[in-house]
């Protein structure tokens, strides 16, 4: 029972990280029908930038751990948003009218480029986050010890998702994004600047991904330049699980995948943990290709 509860909370925390990354994939896919393979490397970049800012600015010492962390999250999100906008401008915008395969290759190229840039700057070894940033406190819930970091990660992600949901559903820009996702041509005719919508999508998505990278650093304490690949693939799986292009779907899919993976690792086999996620993916696509919440039918190539 205790193990079940531990795995559930752990799964929810990891799942909320998947969900944050998945949002970036699903938003870009919704508007551009493109798997942004470089998204996972922006996530990694977020983790590394977070580490750099953390060790160079020592915010926690100056304005306290709480505000320090908040400022850190905001800074990382801002920087990764800029990187996302730059990525779109350089690697994707010239390819708007090209065949889809070209855009996929460009995305893979951008991913290789970013990954190796990170490796050249930070080195190939694991980097360790300083341990004393977040309080080491432990919550007692139902007689079980839950680390405070886990709860912070879960609630921060949920708050970000709620904010995104509000942004997409209630604001003018959010409406424009939804319109562009449904029909770009019609959106353009209605006076929506689709290129600007895409630019915003490429800022908001990576910003969330960058925040997720920072959270992985804080949660696990160590980061590596190749870690984006595994997280990215699982986040994309989560996006498909929930129905790609569907924003609430990505959130549900992420949390669900995190829990499935944590329970699978605990009760089935730890060594096959990564394979479980992909097995779920294949099953979902065979049984219900539109995902759990998706109405959108798989697009024709």
């Amino acid at each position, binding site marked *: 029972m205790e193990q079940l509860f531990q795995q559930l909370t752990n799964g929810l925390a990891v799942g909320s990280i998947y969900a944050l990354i998945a949002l970036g994939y699903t938003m870009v896919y919704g508007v551009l029908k493109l*798997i942004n393979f470089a998204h996972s490397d922006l996530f990694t970049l977020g983790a590394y930038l977070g580490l750099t800012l953390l060790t160079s600015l020592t915010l926690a010492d100056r304005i306290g751990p709480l505000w320090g962390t908040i400022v850190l999250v905001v800074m990382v999100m801002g920087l990764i948003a800029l990187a996302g906008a730059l990525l779109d401008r350089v690697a994707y915008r010239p390819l708007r009218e090209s065949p889809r*395969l070209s855009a996929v290759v460009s995305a893979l*190229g951008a991913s*290789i*480029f970013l990954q190796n840039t990170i490796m050249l700057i930070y080195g190939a070894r694991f980097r360790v986050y300083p341990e004393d940033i977040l309080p080491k406190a432990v919550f007692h819930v139902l007689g079980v010890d839950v680390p405070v970091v886990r709860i912070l990660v879960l609630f921060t992600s949920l708050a970000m998702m709620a904010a995104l949901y509000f942004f997409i559903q209630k604001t003018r820009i959010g409406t424009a994004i939804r319109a562009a996702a449904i029909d770009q041509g019609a959106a353009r005719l209605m006076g929506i600047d689709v290129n600007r919508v895409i630019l915003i999508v490429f800022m908001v998505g990576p910003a969330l991904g960058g925040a997720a990278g920072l959270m992985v650093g804080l949660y696990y304490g160590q980061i590596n330049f190749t870690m984006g*690949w595994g997280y990215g693939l699982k986040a994309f799986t989560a996006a498909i699980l929930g129905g790609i292009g569907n924003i609430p779907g990505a959130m549900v899919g992420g949390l669900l995948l995190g829990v499935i993976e944590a329970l699978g690792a605990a009760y089935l086999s730890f060594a096959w943990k990564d*394979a479980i996620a992909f097995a779920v993916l*294949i099953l979902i696509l065979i049984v219900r*290709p539109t995902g759990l919440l998706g109405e959108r039918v798989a697009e024709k190539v």
Partner: protein
Amino acid sequence: MNRKILIPCAIGAVLAVLPLVLNAYWVDVLNSVGIYAILALSLNLIVGHTGLFNLGHAAFYAVGAYTAAILNTHFHIPVLWLIPVSGLTAGLFALVVARPIIHLRGDYLCIVTIGVGEIVRIALINNVFGITGGANGIFGISRPSVFDLTLRTPNQFFYLIWVFVAVTVFLFHLLEYSRFGRAINYLREDEVAAEGSGVNTAHYKLAVFILGSAWAGMIGNIYAAKMTIISPESFTFWESVLMFVIVILGGSGSIVGVFLGAFLVVGLPEVFREFANARMLIFGAAMVGMMIFRTQGLIPARPRTYSAPDLEEGRETAV
């Protein structure tokens, strides 16, 4: 007609003397180019000709290589005799995997093939069925022999690999201009129209997926024979990406393009060895740049041309 025979013969002659003038290192690079060219040609059937996104081709390559390695180390069957067996197991695996997913479109298929590739790699690392040797892989695969000659040097492998390349090109060229080739091109261009004209698209997609995978399995055998050691590290996602990039960069659907792609993608990083760490960075940037400035690939496939029937002659026979 003459050109069609002369050019391949000339290229063959040049390739045949290359090992005599190059040192062992560059011959080995050419061996890699050959292996990747075959892999990319087999993937080209799936991606280039049929338009199915497949980013998990390394999985079938791995199945072929592991089949060869396991049967060779356990039962001491000469490794080259196992080429058809490797092809068969890879093909069967492709059948089992692709049957339920082949109807998926575009990116869905792409992400599932990535998933399959990862599952295979994890299975190999976890020593599935206790026969894949885990993360260390399998070593001690015996050297291949052709008649009584045991192949050891890069030069000997060069001829083995490039003969296989020649056979592949010949067969795939025939395939391209067959009924089968036309059918898969048709369903790439317009699936609904193809279905409407009586092309059984599901059947053709599955067939081409199995054929391409079986071919990758066979070259997996040659890879295992060449290396004598194989491990899951050789069959990662990036291996699949490399094959995919060769196809798209060279010009999807075009055999010549795929060769150019293989030379560039496998050969050029060797030329730029002195840049060591930065070469993958340059490689990534080059991929983006290439797609922006030459979207269709370096040597795109030429559209099919048919000579119109001679009207005068037609009339005469009609009368």
